[in-house]
């Protein structure tokens, strides 16, 4: 317990350094550039204390739970030797973490109403709602699929850049044919899918798999799952736009 407390104090000290740039930037622009006093200084200071303590506790939990959990899962699957279940797990993890993501729900609803305004899909609440839902599932399936491809790549040891370059080529080609209303949202959907809890877990899983399998290097083969999870949603949402338009 004492150990944990000491670790926590160190963490809080570390997070002060992490947050200092934000405080400096906000302070500088507010006072020097905008010439405005900072209203509610006490509230802001209190908020910053919450941010600091929260970040410190989160990092502590990261090393106690998320990293070991990702690694032990990777080891367990590697020992079990069942490719099928590993891929089902990868899909489930990607799909499950994305489908309920609040940022995605908001973006999907917004995207559907923009497409209705642009005349890409029929107007009316029912059509908009059903397209928003379809878009949400499209993104969730795409993240599930990207983890499946990513894990498969780690097992095979294929170099990542061919996948990513091909993926970007696909994005560029689809951008040319997709309805313009959906392009911006498609690009942004890649960014919203990778949440703060998914990233450490998925990273630990990838690195754990690459360490557990003979002949794989955790640095070259272990990273890259997040890259797939941010690229494939763009491709899937653009395809969604093309299909809906047709």
């Amino acid at each position, binding site marked *: 317990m004492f150990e944990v407390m000491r670790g926590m104090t160190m963490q809080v000290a570390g997070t002060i350094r992490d947050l200092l740039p934000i405080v400096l930037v906000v302070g500088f622009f507010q006072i020097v550039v905008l010439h405005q006093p900072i209203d509610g200084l006490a509230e802001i200071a209190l*908020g910053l204390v919450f941010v600091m303590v929260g970040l410190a506790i989160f*990092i502590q939990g990261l090393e*106690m*739970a998320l990293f070991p959990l990702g690694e032990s*899962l990777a080891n367990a699957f590697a020992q079990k030797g069942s490719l099928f279940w590993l891929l089902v797990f990868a899909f489930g993890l990607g799909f499950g973490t994305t489908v309920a993501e609040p940022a995605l729900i908001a973006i999907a609803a917004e995207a559907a109403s923009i497409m209705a305004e642009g005349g890409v899909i029929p107007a009316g609440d029912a059509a908009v709602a059903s397209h928003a839902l379809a878009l949400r599932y499209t993104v969730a399936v795409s993240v599930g699929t990207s983890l499946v491809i990513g894990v498969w790549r780690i097992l095979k040891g294929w170099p990542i850049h061919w996948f990513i370059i091909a993926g970007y080529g696909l994005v560029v080609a689809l951008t040319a044919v997709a309805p313009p209303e959906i392009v*911006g949202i498609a690009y942004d959907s890649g960014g919203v899918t990778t949440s703060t809890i998914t990233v*450490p877990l998925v990273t630990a899983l990838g690195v754990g798999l690459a360490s557990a399998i003979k002949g794989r290097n955790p640095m*070259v083969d272990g990273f890259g799952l997040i890259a797939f999870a941010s690229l494939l949603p763009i491709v899937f949402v653009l395809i969604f736009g093309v299909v809906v338009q047709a």
Partner: protein
Amino acid sequence: MNGFVLQLVDTFVGTLRDVAPIALVLVGFQVGVLRRKVPHLKKVLIGSFYVVLGLALFLFGLQEALFPIGEMMAQSLTDPAFVAAGKPIGAITWTDYYWTYIFAFAIGFATTIAEPSLIAVAIKAREVSAGGITAWGLRIAVAIGVALSLSVGTFRIVTGTPLYLYMIAGYAIVIVQTMFAPRMIVPLAYDSGGVTTSTVTVPLVAALGLGLASTVPGRSALMDGFGLIALASLFPMITVMGYAQISAWRAGRGDGGKTPQPQGGPQ
């Protein structure tokens, strides 16, 4: 004070709800498929509680302290009255937005340094590369990437040049760098594109993009407000590979061009 506590509880419950599907998948596979006890179960459970609690406090603090002032700032800095500074509104050119570009750069850098998922990936990268990649080196490289991307992105909104030109140029640079960068860094560089746009950065970036798109004449918030995040996921790949290339080049100058590459972790 009562409302304060209520809001805190609200954020905590919200975080729990976000975590629920992940927990469900993990527990389901642990019990249904792997049928194996999690090592150090008690520690993992306490750690998971820390993750949820820490994230809830973090988000709550951001909502209380940072987002309101950051969003207000993004609005005031993009306000034509501020940008024109005495000039007639019609005479504003793209150079008058210099404070916007500087703010975009500074806030992009600062929020990325505080981004929890990037901290997680940086810790892992340091572990795996056995210190070959320092956590701070990676975080600063990524933060510079996001900072540049936001400056370029705000410039793009002000001038109204099409997004795809920037994206294609960026991809071309990524492809060329991939051919020449140390092989070890490539997957990590690709990953760092995705982790940057998360809890801290996205809300402020969205405020900046929408603020600009709604005040610059001729821009639509719907079509031009997006795209900052897309650039912010692209540029860090370039700066992280660039960082590795510079490190390798500096290390290689000493021994006749042979670049020592960071060794992988335990095999």
